[in-house]
């Protein structure tokens, strides 16, 4: 179907049954990200403590890329400090937006493997925001809690 593996198994699976859907108990912050151009909408609820993000859940309406990106974000940021999480978001965005072809991206050893599933988006630039939207919302949530 899709030889370039944009719709990697992890993306399709997560979009169909996200692991982190819902709302956290006793959230310390909430945020919403909307892409008005396509109607995608990500709602996040976060419980963060002194040591960082304890729990993060989402209600996402959107395409497979957006749902999977949100769900995988929830997975990789849980347990991280705020700073660490935001910095990861920046690196993820940079990885997708840099002009280098998908094969030759800077070797970011710290990039969680699951996030690399989005690399093929580099050749579908009109879909980039589907993957970065949850990270924008996370920035909102962490900067206003």
């Amino acid at each position, binding site marked *: *179907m899709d030889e*370039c593996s944009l719709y990697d198994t992890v993306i399709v699976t997560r979009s*169909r049954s996200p692991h982190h859907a819902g709302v956290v108990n006793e959230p310390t912050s909430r945020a919403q990200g909307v892409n008005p151009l*396509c*109607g995608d909408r990500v709602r996040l609820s976060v419980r963060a403590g002194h040591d960082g993000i304890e729990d993060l859940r989402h209600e996402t*309406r*959107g*395409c497979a890329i957006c749902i999977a990106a949100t769900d995988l974000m929830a997975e990789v940021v849980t347990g991280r400090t705020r700073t660490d999480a935001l910095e990861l978001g920046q690196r993820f965005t940079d990885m997708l937006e840099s002009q280098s072809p998908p094969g030759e991206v800077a070797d970011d050893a710290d990039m969680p493997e699951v996030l690399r599933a989005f690399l093929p988006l580099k050749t579908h630039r009109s879909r980039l925001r589907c993957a970065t939207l949850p990270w924008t919302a996370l920035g909102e949530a962490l900067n206003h809690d």
Partner: protein
Amino acid sequence: MSASDTDVLSQADLSHLRAQFPILSQTVHGKPLVFLDSAASAQKPDVVIDGMAEMMRTQYANIHRGLHWMSERSTEAYEAARTRVAEFLGAAAREEIVFTRNSTEAINLVAYSYGSLLRPGQAVLISEMEHHANLVPWQMLRDRIGIELRVAPITDDGDLDLDAYGALLADGKVGLVAITHMSNVLGTVTPAERLVAMAHEAGARILLDGSQAVVHRRVNVQDLKADFYTFTGHKLYGPTGIGVLWARRELLDAMPPFMGGGDMISSVTFEKSVWAPVPAKFEAGTPAIVEAVGLGIAIDWVESIGFDAIGAHEAALTKHALRVLPEVPGLSVVGKPRERGGVVSFTMDDVHPHDIATLLDRNGIAVRAGHHCAEPLMRRLGLTATARASFAAYTTEHEIDVLAETLRRIRQFFV
């Protein structure tokens, strides 16, 4: 081409026709291009591409006022394109044709210029299925001068609700109706003559947004008895950067200019300018000369095939699509209008339209997905987005089969 004899495109006609569109032999992601996004913008035949290049190679200069040969030839070509458009729309006079960048600018021109003649207390009436191009300019006018904006609803099938339309006209406050002649989302062809007659009875003028309609059918503005009609060149196999406003002469005469500059005045002092006669009054500055000429060639091309043949071909394609697409598991076609042009929007359970479009693209198939610049319509339909396949004279039944087959595989992939 034998098309005009038989009024339908034979297989041979169609191959001959497709061979005139160089882009159709391109591949995308290693697959032959299946271009089903013509309602967003149509591809251009060789004659248009070559004709524009030829003009720039051999007969180009700025137009009007140039007393030299190149300028006179360019002026003639530009003005001949105007005559061509006037014939194409059945206008009463060539002076009724104003060239704009696109349909959007044509509508904005009317909103700024004719709109400035409306008074607070009067209303503009649009419909629920307008493209943003025929909605936002009226909102801006409302916010500028305090008119009312009324919205005629559609039925669940996607037709204009004529009773409601009549009711909204009833108090006589509507100064201008602005309604699409064909929806770019639902494919609905609106009953234009009826709409015009009802508007006029209520004392309103009427603008028809023909951006989609002129591509699929012969339009005669005098038969329609419309007041304003707009379309855009790039959807009619013509170049980008050129669009058309038609309006009845006496309206154009009464309207103030939209933009100021060269060529739209007959005399200028620092105190006061005297406007040139129409259409010059509305064409400030150097126009899209080569693009107007390109549009003229595109119209020649369309007429060489003939609307009978194009219409019959597209009707056959649409019928075919409406048969095979609903057979794809989970797929729903949006709307069921009484009369539909070559546009089919659809959704698929469990697969977002954007994912559909991207996966189709990986198979060489170009469709559009999103709100199609008709957000309020999407909201009315309870959707955030649809995928949309749209057909042109060069589209084949086989391409629709490829679309259906690929949609089937996408669905399997996701479910």
